[in-house]
């Protein structure tokens, strides 16, 4: 499968960057509208490409079930062991689709930008290159490259088109993310090089059972994710792998590098404080992509890298303060639950509509973290002992985490779109200045309630599926934490109702008497696909869950 002689996944990575270039090259004398519609057309082609990739994956998966589809592997940095290796599994297919859905919608919303239009649209498109690169990468170097690349357009979107406090927000966002990536870069190098230290007999034993290792030559460094997933966990008890440090310490350091980087990205509590600032100040399109896609990079990193690379580290016992026996999976679960609970409380404390929605992301992504923790625990247990105590729960939790990633992408993008729509008309984000808008904006009100309910996790809409599955998966494993997380679920209701109340309910605030508050047709066009997907996913989740489940089940060995 190839386009213009380039395999389709590679093309999918390059395409948005090329599209961005095209938009940039449109002379500004041609007028803003030309650039906007050109960007939209290019964005829709991108969507079509992702949809086609997704459906191809579905077909290939049914006919020939194996871990990766649409694989392309070309040597790149042979000395380092890095190669241009891309491929798709169920989790990445879902994320690629999500990116494809949200990009043109963000472009439609970017129509409201009046300054440096071409640049703004180009950055939105370019951002997709970074994300798709991460989702299809099967090589750690490629992964890291695109992971960092996605930061740049987002930084400029916030920094150039953001709200009044954009300098602080963009700097905080950029520095914080870079800080996390620093550790990840070191960990990446550490792992890539240390793979060469895996004894040849272990390599050849593993090669017999694992097709991912077929072309690997023992003693060489490698950044291939398949190779690392297969070999790196087997590297145990060898002294002096790196600077004479024991391999356990090396692993723990590498683990921490990844763990913190992804915790910042997801964000897992307490690494979340960049998020309300970045979201609050970002332009609407930026918020949509940031919440919709970028946060998923972190969660995806956990699933794709941290779980398979470090099964032993996840479950190694840790003694906190001499009293609490836990492990890294337990710590992640605990922090995720704190995110669920405290994120909900913090959201309730906001009077700024965009910050409220931003905190809802902390709350919702906490469920993803909890699902990942359950999966990590089971994966680690089965690595150590050959069988996890409750594989089915882990599979359900991991399914729930991925569903929640996808669903949060839809509903948070929708919520930011709506917050942006009202901000664009009133030029205030202060909830206390709104009131009773439902009278003047009945269509907006109905859409707002619908999207809020999806975000709240109303059964029948998409948000519930992920939450239910995570709760189901986590309950038998982290019982007390799951029970505590219910406090977060309760207060999710409270802050959502607070938002609805402040915007729509109550007597109409006559200050806005002469404003047109009703949602614009363009905005309806942008949110309609999201609403349709929210409903369809809520009623028939299997259209995407089936794809995710096949991969998750294979991964967990169920």
């Amino acid at each position, binding site marked *: 499968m190839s386009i213009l002689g380039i395999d389709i996944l590679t093309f999918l990575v390059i395409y948005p960057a090329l599209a961005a270039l095209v938009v940039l090259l449109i002379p500004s004398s041609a007028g803003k509208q030309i650039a906007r519609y050109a960007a939209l057309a290019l964005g829709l082609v991108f969507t079509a490409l992702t949809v086609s990739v997704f459906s191809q994956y579905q077909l290939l998966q049914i006919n020939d079930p194996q871990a990766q589809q649409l694989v392309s592997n070309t040597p790149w940095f042979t000395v380092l062991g890095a190669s241009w290796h891309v491929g798709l599994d169920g989790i990445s297919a879902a994320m690629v689709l999500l990116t494809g859905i949200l990009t043109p919608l963000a472009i439609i919303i970017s129509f409201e930008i009046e300054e440096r239009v071409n640049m703004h649209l180009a950055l939105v498109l370019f951002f997709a290159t970074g994300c798709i690169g991460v989702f299809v990468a099967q090589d750690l170097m490629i992964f890291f490259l695109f992971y960092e690349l996605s930061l740049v357009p987002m930084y400029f979107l916030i920094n150039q088109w953001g709200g009044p406090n954009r300098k602080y927000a963009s700097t905080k966002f950029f*520095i914080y993310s870079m800080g996390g990536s620093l550790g990840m870069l070191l960990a990446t190098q550490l792992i890539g090089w240390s793979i060469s230290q895996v004894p040849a007999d272990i390599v050849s034993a593993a090669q017999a059972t694992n097709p991912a290792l077929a072309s690997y030559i023992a003693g060489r460094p490698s950044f291939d994710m398949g190779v690392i997933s297969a070999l790196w966990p087997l590297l145990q008890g060898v002294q002096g792998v790196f600077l004479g440090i024991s391999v356990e*310490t090396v*692993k*723990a350091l590498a683990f921490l590098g990844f763990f913190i980087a992804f915790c910042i990205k997801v964000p897992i509590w307490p690494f*979340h*404080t960049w998020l309300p600032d970045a979201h609050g100040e970002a332009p609407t399109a930026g918020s949509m992509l940031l919440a919709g896609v970028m946060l998923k990079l972190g969660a995806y990193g956990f699933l794709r890298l941290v779980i398979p690379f470090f099964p032993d580290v996840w479950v190694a*016992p840790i*003694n906190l303060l001499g009293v609490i026996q836990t492990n*890294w999976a337990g710590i992640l679960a605990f922090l995720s639950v704190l995110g669920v609970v*405290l994120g909900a*409380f*913090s959201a*309730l*404390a906001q009077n700024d509509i965009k910050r409220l929605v931003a905190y809802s992301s902390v709350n919702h992504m906490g469920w993803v973290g909890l699902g990942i923790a359950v999966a990590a625990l089971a994966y680690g247990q089965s690595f150590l002992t050959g069988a996890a105590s409750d594989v*089915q*729960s882990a*599979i*359900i939790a991991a*399914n729930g985490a991925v569903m929640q990633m996808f669903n949060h992408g839809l509903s948070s993008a929708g919520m930011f779109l709506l917050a942006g729509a009202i901000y664009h008309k009133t030029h205030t984000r202060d909830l206390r200045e709104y*009131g*009773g808008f439902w*009278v*003047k904006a*009945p269509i907006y009100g109905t859409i707002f*309630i619908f999207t809020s309910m999806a975000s709240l996790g109303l*059964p*029948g809409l998409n948000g519930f*599926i992920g939450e*239910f599955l995570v*709760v*189901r998966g986590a*309950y*038998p494993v982290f*019982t007390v934490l*799951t*029970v505590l997380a*219910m406090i977060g*679920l*309760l*207060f999710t*209701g*409270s802050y959502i*109702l607070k938002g609805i*109340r402040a915007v729509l*309910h*109550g*007597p*109409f*605030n*006559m200050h806005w*008497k002469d404003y047109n508050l009703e949602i614009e047709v363009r905005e309806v066009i942008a949110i309609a696909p999201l609403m349709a997907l929210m409903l369809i996913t809520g009623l*028939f*989740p*299997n259209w995407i*869950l*089936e794809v995710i*489940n*096949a991969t998750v*089940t294979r991964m967990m060995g*169920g």
Partner: protein
Amino acid sequence: MNLAEFLSSPNTLPWLIPAGPLLAFAIIVLITNRGRLVPAASHAYEDHNHPGYKGLFVPVVTDWGRVASIIVGMSGIIAAWLISLSIVGQAFAKQDFGKKVFESGFEWMSLGAPGSGFHMGVLVDPLTTIMLVMVPLACTMIFIYAIGYMAHDPRQARFFALISLFAGAMLTLVVADNLLLLFVGWEVMGLCSYLLIGFWYEKPSAYKAAMKAFTTTRVADVIMMLGIVYLYAQTGTLSFREIMYNEEVLAGLAGTPAILFGSFGLSAAGLIGIFLIIGTVGKSAQFPLHVWLPDAMEGPTPVSAMIHAAAMVSAGVYATIRMFPVFEAGGHPHEGILTAPLIFMAVVGAFTAIFAATIAVAQNDVKKVLAYSTISQLGFMLAALGMGAYVAATFHLITHAFFKALLFMASGSVIHGMEHGQHHVHEHAGHGHDDHAHDDAHAPAVAHAAHGHDAHHDDHGHDDHAHEAHAGHHFDPQDMMNMGGLRKTMPVTFVTFLIGGLSLAGFPLITAGFWSKDEILADAWYGITNGWGVHALVFILLAAAAFLTAFYTMRQLGLTFWGEPRTEEAKHANLGQGVVSATMTLPLIILAFFAVFAGFVGVHPDFPILGGIFSANGIPFKNFLGPTLLVKPELIPFSIVPVLTSFVVGLGGLYVGWLLYWRKPLVAGEADPLTRIIPANVYNLLKNKYYVDELYDRVFIRPSQAFANAFAYVFLDKRLIDGFLHLIARVAVWIGDLFKVLNLWLIDGVGDGIPEFIAMFGRWFRRIQTGRIQQYLLLVAIAAILIALVLVASSGVLVQAAGG
């Protein structure tokens, strides 16, 4: 499967029951709900529910949109009703129904290996069939009623969309074959109730009540969700049939210690049961989560009927009836062995029954009396189920649904009539009378005091925006103190209200309420004769509650309909003529029929005379419902004691009510006779609902808001986490500055400075002595120490983490 097969098989047909109303919802929202803009101050918009904003144009549904929406909504519910009737008919005709059921399903979520996914389906068993008799009928009546009741509302189309969704959700819940689908309907109904209670969302009292309802029930729902996931984790399925109709699964649940509190002897079934029952406690407004329901009266009256009778609160009890075998697992209620969930239900239900009944006694709002009465009656059902009286609980659920829907709609007619009278007074007598009426209404000192806590009066706290038109307008058309003598102008409403009221009061032999309540007491008595404590408690509390029920019903009837009108408005209260009047009266008459005759399907065979007539082959209701369970409920022996008790408490309560409110009816300005027989502080305690709202406000609402603001956001996020980040940033900037200075000295100094070095020496030396160098050196030292500390501290954790 082709369409013809799908439609002709009773196994697949139930899918279509909720489809009609759901489709109607979609059509109204997307197509027929079309508005035109009118000035907000115009007659079409402005009334006491919709403030008239000066100079603002607001959308009001167009005439064709109104009519089309009503037609679409009615078509949806009638389609659901007809399909239900068809299925009910086939169910009655089916041999061995119960063991054999109508069901169909498909894999809804793939989870894990093929075959272990989640199945979604519909199920019609005897219990569902009984619900399918009641729910679509009651819903249809409510829909018809809403045509008239909402006829002048500027957003009637939206109203029909929402009640259609409500009905669709309720029907989904009823035909669900698993707990998850039930939960979907459950929560969607929660959303609808939120939107409908807050339907007049410009009124602060309305949106506050809506938020309260949603939040309070959500407390219960998140706990219920734990029950659902626990059950799912424990059994691998949520299908009713696979769990409830399967001895092995039930025994397994009863035999496994619970994952929490298991060491106290609680079984998995016990904990799951308690989690699920808490869900019902919220949905069916049982103590301590009852607080939302009285406030839910802020919604338009058909909503009240929907919430109280046909749908939401019934759903709560329905879910417990549905899950009864899980609660029962490990016990044997017929032999006095009660499990933890059963005892929990019995205690909560019995307590709520008496608790709410006492509050109802002292309420003056015509709908609030009924709201508390509903809470109390739901307590009856839960208590019955707690004793293992499966059939009696279901029976009371059905009869109560009929007479309570009737009562709510009749009270809606009363309110509508009062509003009519209010208009009349307003138009014909000008403001003078209005003020007069207002004075009358507030003349009784006690009534006035009570208003301070009345949600209606929140209205007046929000005049800051655009509400001046209604400032000072205090007449409350729902206050029974303003009524009296309505029997003369609203005879049909009076008679139907009377029938509903007597049924609620359990007027012996001829009302449905008597038979269902009697059956519950009979079950409790059976327990007493065997010496079981829980049953004795339930019997005493329920008998007392039944007495109070009869009393407050008589009080309500007396205050509303008897005597002479106490205000001008009451004198002119009527429903008028035409469509409004007809659509609001017809449902009352139909429901009144059921409020009387629905009881005769549940007469004990050994009941003197009547048993032989109605139950020659055993109790029909029980015979039909019984096979829902794997082990059919046993028939308890007939006893005259509970029957006599029912007679005494029913007639006794009615008599005391008659003494106080009918014999010498209340006249304008007179205090409630109740204040003469009970102490003032007790009366105020009841009137103010035991101050539970105030308590919750202090204990839960304000602390959690304070926690959210002060702790979670300001302290943790802003001060602690961001403070730490800013500190790091500042240290980094300092270090950067340090390097900058070093650069200046070393690099630039070496490169450019050597020629100047000697000349600079003197000045440089002086700078050291100013102390700036020491300052920097100090910083370097601090930074070094900090880094060292972090390394030392973290290495310990790291080594541990690596398993070292």
